[in-house]
């Protein structure tokens, strides 16, 4: 696996709210599902409004898949983890066994 293929995810949240916390927790669960094979950055737009402006974030939480392509943006607290994984469009290498999803 080359460097460019590393799964990089950026999560934009607004402050220290329950919704932000839920999104972060859900994303950590997803990271486990992917066997830790992803880099996660969490950005609080209250602290970095200029980053929200650069990424043109409207809704929070928003999860941005930075690499590998295709670029993806998901809106919401990521509560439906199986849907998140399928929408991330990770290709063959990252398919999650059906059993493990049901177990969640």
């Amino acid at each position, binding site marked *: 696996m080359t460097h460019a293929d590393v799964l990089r995810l950026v999560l934009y949240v607004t402050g220290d709210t329950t919704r932000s916390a839920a999104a972060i927790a859900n994303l950590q669960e997803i990271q486990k599902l992917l066997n830790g094979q992803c880099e996660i950055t969490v950005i609080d737009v209250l602290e970095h409004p200029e980053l*929200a402006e650069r990424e043109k974030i409207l809704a*929070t939480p928003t999860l941005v898949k930075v690499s590998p392509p295709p670029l993806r943006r998901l809106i919401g607290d990521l509560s439906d983890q199986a849907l998140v994984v399928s929408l991330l469009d990770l290709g063959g290498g990252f398919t999650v066994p059906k059993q493990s999803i049901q177990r969640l």
Partner: protein
Amino acid sequence: MNSQFLAPVDKLATDIPGFDLVTLGGLPRGRTTLVAGTAGSAKTVFAAQFLAEGILHSQEAGVFVTFEEPPDDLRRNMASFGWPIADWERQGLWRFVDGSIQAHDDDHVVGQYDLGGLLVRIEHAVTSVNARRVSLDSLGAIFNRLHDGDTVRHELLRISVALKRMNVTSVLTAERTSEYGDISRHGVEEFVADNVVILRNALEDEKRRRTIEVLKYRGTLHQKGEFPFSVTPARGVTVIPLSAIELKQRSSNLRVTSGNPDLDGLCGGGFFRDSVVLVSGATGTGKTLLTTEFLAGGVNSNERCLLLAFEESREQLFRNAIGWGVNFEEMEAEGKLKVYCVYPETASLEDHLITIKDLVAEFRPHRVAVDSLSALERVGTIRSFREFVIGMTSFIKHQEITGLFTATTPTLTGGASVTESHISTLTDSIILLRYVEINGEMRRGITVLKMRGSMHNKDICEFTIDGCGLHVGKPFRNVVGILSGNPHMIAASEIERLDELFRNP
């Protein structure tokens, strides 16, 4: 005294031409106003102009939140109104918050969300340029993208509250589905309902008519009803405040010449300055001649004159004037005359009115002649035309200008026109030119029907036209029924008998 009363709602002058008159001062300061309209009703122009006028008139910075058109499109589209948005951005007077749809956006929704990101970006933009004005255009687009109406409604309420807290005056635009139906699609008025302004672009008799109406101004007064407005390349939205025009023009006792000594005689010594004169007559009765003499009379007494011609071309007008010994070309070269010729169909009545106002403001004439007002009738609906006539008459009177308008009657003899019925109460003087058929011969009669504030000759006099102009002759003594369009001769003995009727015993 312990003041328990809250300060009344203060208004922010928008400087959108005419809008502050209709709203009695502008938009409620520090509040949100919903501007709703159908597609093509100039919502985006209004939203952008609200910021542009703030920058142009009071150096107030503005933030434009766009959900529909990308900033690049807006910069380009608004440049046609003369608003250099890119320059303003560099000067820190204008900031975009781009919420328009991005190429990679497919907005998959996974769980619950709010519009915190948007709110943070708006707040960031407002504080970074110290904005006083904010426009959001348009709310409908965000509903279409995020589907979850309840969440979006709730979040927009939060943004609306936040805008008030930031103490900015804001305009939020929203779509309507019909001109006379629900206030807005998605029911957005329910949460930003302090103030609602409606822009209409209604189709009447195959003609578009733009109007603006203040539907609701919570806690403060405004003018009621629809007011026509126009969107012109030079200045964007211009509202024409008809009923807001005050009847307070000065009137003068000073007489000015009509340009024709005979007519001056009929009027009791000429027209009053600051008066509006209507000349009504069938085609070929000499209205354009009277207009030419009126202008020449002005130029000869060293006044600046403006001619607005809607029927004939410059060449025709100049040639005709030469025929009567008046040289328009020379007068224009001296800067005493300005001739503005245009086909009525080239613009809407609202646009014509704005052009006329611009011309008057630029040239500052002492006299304005319109030949003919009736030619404009066919451009708009009857209502638009009435509003145009009222708007122009009151404007001209306000400027203390002597005005002369001509109106064409539809029938050759007798008759009255639509123009007259709209304008007769607004004008100070009415002069009728009529054909009189006597013994198989067409002759012409002139009478001064009305002359406010002065005695005038009540006779219907015969007049003739030759190479030197118009000459008033003797009154028609033995003809009756001229004005009703059915003239007939009566015997001299009958006139004597009629005279007897009114003689005191």
